[in-house]
């Protein structure tokens, strides 16, 4: 079985990620309710070797990894790769030039 740590920790982190993803009405979102219901349903048995509980915990940890990685990937994309090509004005500005003004438009 994978080394997953405490289920409560995974649950709390997962709910936090869902809150980031959903916005203001996160508590009514179907994902939030589904995750809480699933964890409550499996709380019944406190057996350490309960297979369904471990399956749920693994699924929750995987979903947490998905949400977290997507958020981090998007942040990295926005920061490093989202800006596209610079306009001619910006390119000129890189070396301290300014584009010439031509009042009659380009010839």
């Amino acid at each position, binding site marked *: 079985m994978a080394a997953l740590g405490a289920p409560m920790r995974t649950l709390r982190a997962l709910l936090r990620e869902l809150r980031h993803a959903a916005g203001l009405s996160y508590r009514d979102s179907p994902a939030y309710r589904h995750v809480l*219901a699933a964890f*409550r349903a499996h709380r019944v048995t406190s057996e350490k070797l309960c297979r369904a509980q471990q399956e749920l915990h*693994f699924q929750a940890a995987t979903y947490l990894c998905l949400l977290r*990685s997507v958020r981090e990937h998007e942040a990295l*994309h926005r920061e*490093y*790769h989202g800006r*596209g090509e610079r306009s001619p004005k910006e390119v000129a500005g890189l070396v301290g030039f300014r584009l010439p003004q031509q009042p009659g438009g380009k010839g």
Partner: protein
Amino acid sequence: LWWAHSPPARLPRPPPAAAGSCPVGPCGRRAYAPPAERKRFYQNVSISQGEGGFEINLDHRKLKTPQAKLFTVPSEALAIAVATEWDSQKDTIKFYTMHLTTLCNTALDNPTQRNKTQLIRAAVKFLETDTVCYRVEEPPALAELQKNEWDPVVSWAEKRYNVTIGSSTSILGPNIPASTKETFVSHLASYNMWALQGIEFVITQLKSLILSMSLIDRHITVEKAVLLSRLEEEYQIRRWGNVEWAHDYDLCELRARTAAGTLFVHLCSESSTVKHKLLQD
């Protein structure tokens, strides 16, 4: 050396074709300009149950696949996760972040038109070039790291599936006996078509059948599987330094895709035990 001193430039990623009704491709626009993204055109995302399974509603419209089929998934949890993906889009729709939606679209449309046998064959073929079976001889630190990290996974797989795999330092790779391949073929045949699409996806991402199976059998976590898949890169990063906009970018993307694939496989091969417990409430 894995990374040169001047790291290569990165093109912005265009939205994948299989992931939605995005209009024209990159031709007709300036090169390197980020492609025009679709704005979020819906307020609410909800789920409904139809004849074929669960459907996603964007406002009053039903979500469709790129080939205009009705988007139906067999599992409610999967539908909820897909709905969450759509709901978490802010001003623009970023298809490259919606991995579960993409996987569902692939399963529904089957754009490569492969049947179950072909999918299984493609998956098992990866065993011949499995990452964890390909070992280096130098640098000795990397060879040692590979032995310490990959040997346990290989022996786990050999024990779990009662097969012989081994590893190799030659360029031809390990010699996988036919009985091993047959065992994996018959094991994979027990999964349904949707789960198989997910499995094949995870194998393609991790470049390893063994790591994918140990992930799907819940022997290791996604983070660990990704780490093992990128072992040489991690070694080089520790040696030469980390480049955030390349290394972390790739790491996050690989983690996201692998996690999506794994979750997809598990949700598509739901055991009746889980359903039973939920019905009890």
